[in-house]
């Protein structure tokens, strides 16, 4: 629990104490070399993506300076304008869909998780034990095993190929409920709730004005996890959507990948579009993670099963 609230960027007391006594610089050098290797490995694919997005179709295949360095000419802006206009701007539509699904599914999942977690933590209702065991069991059910049955069910009621076929199933987050329950149990004191009840506060006002503000760090964590989970989801939208205008960007890029192999670009280098499209699609989440470091660095340690 402490990790949720503790900012990780303050160095631990032990590190400060040992550096005061003077660590051997040799060991630190070794550690930094190791870290530098790791950074190179983890960043190299992104570097490749950035470099490649400045190349045109033929530059991708034969670049004088190799695949990991800039080629002749700088075609990033040409590539971007092709990306946004190709096929009547379908790429922008995919990005908008991804955003809609991620926010719709993510916010929905968070609201449900906060309410349910609060109920599990603070109310003693009939069937609570059984419901909570069911919830713990559900955490262990692999979500992809539900995709095909969900598709068949949704097609039975004519809901496949609609935005709801992606958003509604994405609202299911048993692990989010579990996190909220554990967090609310400690963060919202019973005494405080009882005192407010004595003063005549209604249960719903109590939730919004007393409990919710205390649960904020966990709310941000669950929101982030479920938005990322839905944004990155691939299997569900691939199964339930067939109209390419409804695709999120993950399914869309993969559609291009399939077409590029079959040379169906219609004169446009689809490989260039895939590269630039991939780069543009990862910018929002990376920016969000860099900007919201304060929130996720502790919170993410609570994890996700998605």
């Amino acid at each position, binding site marked *: 629990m402490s*990790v949720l609230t503790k900012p*990780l960027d303050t160095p*631990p007391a*032990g*590190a400060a104490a040992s550096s005061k006594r003077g660590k051997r610089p040799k060991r*630190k050098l070794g*550690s930094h070399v190791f*870290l*530098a290797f*790791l*950074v190179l490995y*983890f960043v190299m694919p*992104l570097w*490749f993506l950035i470099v*490649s997005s400045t190349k045109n179709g033929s530059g*991708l*295949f034969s670049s004088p300076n*190799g*695949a990991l360095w800039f080629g002749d000419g700088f075609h990033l802006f040409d590539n971007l304008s092709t990306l946004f206009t190709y096929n009547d701007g379908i790429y922008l539509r995919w990005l908008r869909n991804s955003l809609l699904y991620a926010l719709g599914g993510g916010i929905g999942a968070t609201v449900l998780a906060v*309410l349910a977690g609060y*109920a599990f933590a603070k*109310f*003693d*209702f*009939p069937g*609570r034990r059984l419901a909570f065991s*069911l919830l*713990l*069991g*559900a955490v*262990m059910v*692999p979500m*992809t*095993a*539900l*995709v*095909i049955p*969900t*598709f068949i*069910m949704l097609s039975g009621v004519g809901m496949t190929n609609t935005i709801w076929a992606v958003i*509604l*199933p994405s*609202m*299911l987050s*048993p692990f989010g409920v579990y996190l909220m329950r*554990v967090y609310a149990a*400690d963060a919202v004191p019973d005494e405080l709730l*009882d005192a407010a009840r004595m003063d005549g506060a209604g*249960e719903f006002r109590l939730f919004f004005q007393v409990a919710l503000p205390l649960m904020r760090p966990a709310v941000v964590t669950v929101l982030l996890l479920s938005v990322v989970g839905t944004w*990155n989801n*691939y299997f569900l939208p691939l*199964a339930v959507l067939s109209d390419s205008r409804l695709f999120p960007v993950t399914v869309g890029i993969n559609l291009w*990948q399939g077409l590029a*192999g079959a040379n169906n670009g219609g004169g446009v280098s689809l490989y260039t579009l895939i590269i630039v499209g991939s780069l543009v*699609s990862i910018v929002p*989440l990376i920016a969000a*993670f860099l900007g919201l470091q304060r929130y996720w660095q*502790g919170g993410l*340690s*609570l994890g996700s099963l998605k």
Partner: protein
Amino acid sequence: MATLHTAPRPDAPTAGPPAGQRRRKQGRGRSQGLIGWAFLAPFAVVFLVFLIAPLLYAFYLSLYTKGLATGERFAGLENYSRAFSDPSFLNGVWFVVRFSFIVIPAQMIVALAAALVLDSVTSRFSRFARLMIFIPYAIPAVIGAVIWGFLYSPSFGPLEQLFGDDAPFLLSPDNLFYGFTNVVTWQWAGYFMIILYAALQGIDPSVYEAAKIDGAGSWQIATRIKIPMISSALILVLVFSLIGTLQFFAEPQVLTPISNGAIGTDITPNVYAFNLAFRFAQFNYASAISFALGIVVFIGVYIFLFATRKRGGFLQ
């Protein structure tokens, strides 16, 4: 989750309510119950509709077969006996099991080594490194697989320039395992590193001081103190990694077109179920495979958590 249970939880469901609460409950038991359910209801509805119903429906469908001439008929457990004698399904299961044995240790070693080093040095560069190692988590698995597909590709990638004509093709039948291991490790090790790093940061540093006085070196501190103290976080990471690997889908699906046939339509159970349903319209059989996979993963993870419950804490 890992760090949550290191301290005894006062709110454990087995513990009796304190006296005050008990008195309160007698007075307002009914309304408390109603309000509790009111808060739970929205989630309960989604839970029933999108978890319980698909599971039951999948089980129901899996008990039927559909022939072109015969129509739908009750088949009992026929689909399951077919699955467990279907080489495509069995090979897929065997593939993910073998793959787990390679990719899970790979991810955990990289994540643990990175977390231990990051925990022991505090510098501007180490903070930067922590972020960079984590970044692939923010990249969808599909996009990650697309990028690595380019990097592996003989016509685009840097391998050809490094090794010339002897460049290994990491998606050939012999190298497929390494190709996948690399993609998955790259994608997830940073996320696991963050979980382990947070657990390491939660250890009281005075423990290290005591060990140093007793003459322990940093290697001994790492292996004898740090790793045992974060064992619950390690188990958590192992479970995440196990659940993820058994469901392996996006990467093989995305890399199929460029693998020159090394990746078949039945490489993992999920890919097989997807192809059965959407290529061959065998929804009943696909449901049986989905359901079987779900049950196998559920039982596997449950047994694992039960066996490690003293250290883990999820099932406490």
